[in-house]
């Protein structure tokens, strides 16, 4: 492997590109769409699907705000309202927030680390299909009036067989299983890709902060999601085959559910936040035209947030009457996690101070993020206090708190990221003018919607109420919140319009419109199926700034087969070659089999009898060896 200037041997370079095109091209047409294993096309459809669910969830919230606009309103009855707020929670948590973050990760990470694709392309496709199936399952059920109605937290016994007859809660449990599988698949993808497919020279301590964020997030997913997948299966068993995990009379315990659920549920919040922090770091660096200050501190705080987030779950249960001392421990932990989050904020501010900020839309969203996230953070410290939390717990104060955290910590950075990477993904810029409107509407709207809720909570308005009585005096503030919600809706609408318009008429972007520093900007926009003609060699944290003009590249990679370079974990020395599969339909078929299994199971135990063989069959097809692979495998051995 030697460093070669990018512009050397042009003619040869042309043929290389042509051959790579040939090799990595995805089959055209619908079939191609169904069989694609390219992380970019999968990432794109992942993002689009997630955004569609985001809009749906937002509309549900809008309807709820309409219902709450005035006391004793009659837009929604209690039954519909309960389904709406449950669907809103589930959509935002399971179908939007987590998937969209992993999706962006799946799209960007390989580009940022100079890889041709994710480690397991077919698994990646499978993950998306399962996620899509889960989302469709949930929403079809919803339209069949079988939408879950016990909250995204579905506390037993309310969600148990006695108090939630019918199939609504079974749909809840099973659709979570779908999304958890998708999330776990994505986590495995990211971890392996980040560990084994980084461009030569990109040692761990040279990885972009966003990649670090995704790595931490992936590990959190890996440790948190199995809990909710398990606990929802326990619930399903209680409901379908009369087990007694949550039946106190037969030795079960209603609190067991809460412990298991929140042991997932709290990390879940940080699973959503962490990638957001990654976005912010990237945008800050680019828009202050200097690397983010305190790289080690940033990485360490990311890691410690990841660890600490597993030690906080009980602060969702302060009102359940657990022992005082134990609770204080969780208070301490909950407060402690503020420190790493704080450090990152401080580092960004320092970076901005030291840099030369350009106030592009992405940067605006970062500023908005800091404001909203900090407010959410300080109220978070407040609810971490046992005594105070027992007062405001399950009141609108908490609603305000976590919407500040999640919208501030996830949605704003995400939108920032959209404006930032849209050119890379589509090749066209988003309109800055619409972008500013978009930002200010959202910023004002969000604060208008959620700030009054702090007050409502303190005045005693509980969560999850489909209406309230006039004399409570909660009317005016609720109306205010609803008005805010309208602004938010308009803001999101503007965003959608901006995307739609820019897709056709947006200014052409070119490879690196922002003058950014990371590898994804080193290739064309949108990137070719093979991402990079030459796998670059990295010598610093900001390759495009530190090695302007040309990048040293890896040679000796075959271009007539789907070879990707596997590097060592710590300092990314080239290790071996890995042969990637061609487009295939099997991931889709496997996902369909999975769906059949899961859906039939909630209606009859025979579901297992029907679904399992189907699933095994498709897996068999998936893993069926092709002669060609063997032959080429040999050739690799010869070369390697």
């Amino acid at each position, binding site marked *: 492997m030697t460093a070669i200037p990018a512009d050397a041997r042009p003619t040869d370079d042309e043929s290389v590109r042509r051959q790579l095109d040939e090799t990595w091209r995805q089959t055209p047409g619908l079939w191609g769409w169904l069989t694609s294993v390219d992380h970019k096309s999968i990432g794109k459809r992942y993002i689009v699907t997630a955004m569609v669910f985001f809009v749906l969830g937002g509309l549900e919230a809008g309807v709820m705000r309409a219902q709450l606009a005035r006391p004793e309103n009659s837009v929604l009855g209690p039954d519909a309202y309960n389904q709406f707020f449950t669907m809103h929670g589930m959509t935002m948590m399971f179908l939007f927030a987590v998937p969209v973050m992993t999706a962006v990760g799946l799209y960007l990470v390989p580009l940022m680390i100079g890889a041709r694709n994710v480690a397991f392309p077919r698994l990646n496709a499978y993950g998306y299909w399962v996620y899509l199936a889960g989302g469709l399952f949930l929403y079809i059920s919803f339209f069949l009036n079988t939408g879950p109605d016990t909250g995204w937290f579905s506390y037993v016994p309310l969600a148990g067989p006695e108090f939630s007859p019918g199939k609504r809660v079974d749909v809840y449990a099973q659709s979570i299983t779908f999304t958890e599988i998708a999330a776990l698949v994505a986590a495995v993808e990211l971890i392996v890709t980040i560990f084994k497919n980084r461009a030569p020279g990109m040692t761990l301590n040279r990885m972009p902060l966003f990649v670090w964020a995704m790595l931490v997030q992936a590990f959190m997913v890996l440790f948190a999601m199995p809990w909710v997948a398990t606990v929802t299966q326990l619930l399903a068993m209680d409901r379908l085959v009369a087990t007694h995990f949550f039946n106190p009379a037969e030795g079960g315990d209603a609190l067991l559910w809460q412990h298991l659920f929140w042991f997932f549920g709290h990390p879940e919040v940080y699973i959503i936040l962490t990638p957001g922090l990654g976005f912010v770091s990237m945008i800050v660096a680019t828009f202050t035209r200097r690397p983010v200050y305190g790289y080690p501190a940033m990485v360490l705080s990311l890691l410690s947030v990841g660890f600490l987030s597993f030690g906080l779950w009980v602060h969702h249960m302060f009102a359940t009457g657990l022992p005082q001392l134990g609770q204080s421990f969780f208070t301490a932990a909950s407060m402690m996690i503020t420190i790493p989050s704080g450090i990152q904020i401080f580092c960004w501010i*320092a970076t901005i101070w030291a840099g030369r900020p350009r106030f592009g839309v992405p940067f605006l969203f970062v500023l908005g993020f800091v404001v909203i996230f900090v407010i959410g953070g300080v109220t978070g410290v407040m609810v971490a206090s046992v005594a105070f939390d*027992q*007062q405001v717990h*399950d009141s609108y104060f908490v609603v305000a708190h976590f919407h500040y955290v999640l919208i501030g910590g996830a949605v704003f950075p995400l939108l920032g990221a959209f404006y930032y990477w849209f050119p890379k993904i589509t090749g066209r810029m988003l309109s800055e003018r619409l972008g500013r409107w978009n930002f200010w509407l959202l910023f004002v709207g969000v604060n208008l919607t959620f700030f009054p809720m702090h007050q409502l909570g303190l005045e005693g308005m*509980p969560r999850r109420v489909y209406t309230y009585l006039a*004399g409570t005096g909660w009317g005016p503030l609720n109306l205010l919140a609803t008005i805010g919600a309208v602004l938010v809706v308009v803001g999101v609408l503007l965003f959608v319009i901006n995307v739609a318009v820019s897709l056709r008429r947006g200014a052409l972007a070119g490879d690196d419109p922002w003058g950014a520093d990371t590898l994804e900007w080193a290739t064309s926009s949108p990137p070719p199926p093979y991402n990079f003609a030459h796998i670059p060699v990295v010598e610093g944290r900001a390759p495009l700034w530190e090695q302007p003009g040309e990048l040293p590249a890896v040679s000796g990679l075959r271009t007539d087969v789907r070879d990707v370079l596997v590097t060592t974990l710590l300092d990314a020395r080239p290790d071996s070659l890995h042969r990637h599969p061609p487009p295939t339909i099997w991931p889709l078929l496997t996902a369909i089999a999975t769906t059949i299994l899961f859906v039939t199971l909630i209606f009859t135990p025979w579901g297992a009898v029907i679904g399992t063989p189907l699933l095994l069959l498709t897996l068999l097809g998936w893993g069926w060896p092709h002669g060609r692979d063997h032959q080429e495998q040999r050739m690799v051995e010869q070369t390697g």
Partner: protein
Amino acid sequence: MPLTLASTLVQQAHTSLNPASPQVRLVDQLGTAMFVTAAVVCLLVFAALLWAALRRRSGAEPVADGRQERPMKTAVLLATGVTTVILFVFLIFDVSVGRSITTNPGNDALQIRVTGHQWWWEVQYRDSLPKNWATTANEIHVPVGRPVVFELRSTDVIHSFWPPNLSPKRDQIPGNENSLWFQADSAGVYRGQCAEFCGHQHAKMAFLVVAEPADQFEGWLARQRDTAQTPTDSLARRGKDVFMAASCVMCHAISGTSAGSRIGPDLTHLASRRTLAAGTLPNTRENLTGWIVDPQAIKPGVKMPPNQLSGPELLALVAYLETLK
């Protein structure tokens, strides 16, 4: 049917912001302290952010050199240190408040058992002498200046007992008993509401806490212990027959009569209560009538079915219920 709301009876007495018990006062202080600090922190951060973003720059391209790094380092370390200190102070404050809330109320405490039902509150006054037990619903009277211990239970789903002016909330979880205590230190009518999502009418599962001077309270309790009087006027007497013959008797108890079902609230002293339907309606004749005829219009999903009673029957029934002082 015009719905005026029950809590109009309780002007401004459903908020954690005007404490009526030492417990809530402490929490309120804690909250205020944290709020003020939080506000200051926010403002500082925002100020720093704006300044960092908008400060006038000196010409040259920024380079990460020592000259810049040192002040940044100190700034970040300083900020982090301050944050840590603030959090530590909060922690101590919180623990101390928590301890003082959960201290032993002492022996002269009044014992009340509150059981959450979908979607109303069963209230039972305990006493060493069984005869002195009294059961009511959705309206809790407490003596001013005397600790009251609440034994919190649920027999269906999880509810959460929360009178914001008087006490932080505590969940009522089937299978594990909970308890809390407070001491009302000023007379008044306070409103509380279920704080844990419990199904269709979670929104209309409220209750009143009536804090009154000890002697008044004792008088009230004594009345609650009485069995219901047999009505004197003929209309009410007919109403009683209606009650005993119609679906009412399947769910409600009126002590002193043969109605002894515990599915719905105990109606022995219904007329003495301020509200109907768990703090949803003021206890007036119109509301009572409307409630009996079509509760589903007022609390959709509530366990009480619409009752098809003839006009005269209904009139008599209401007349009877109004005698249950």
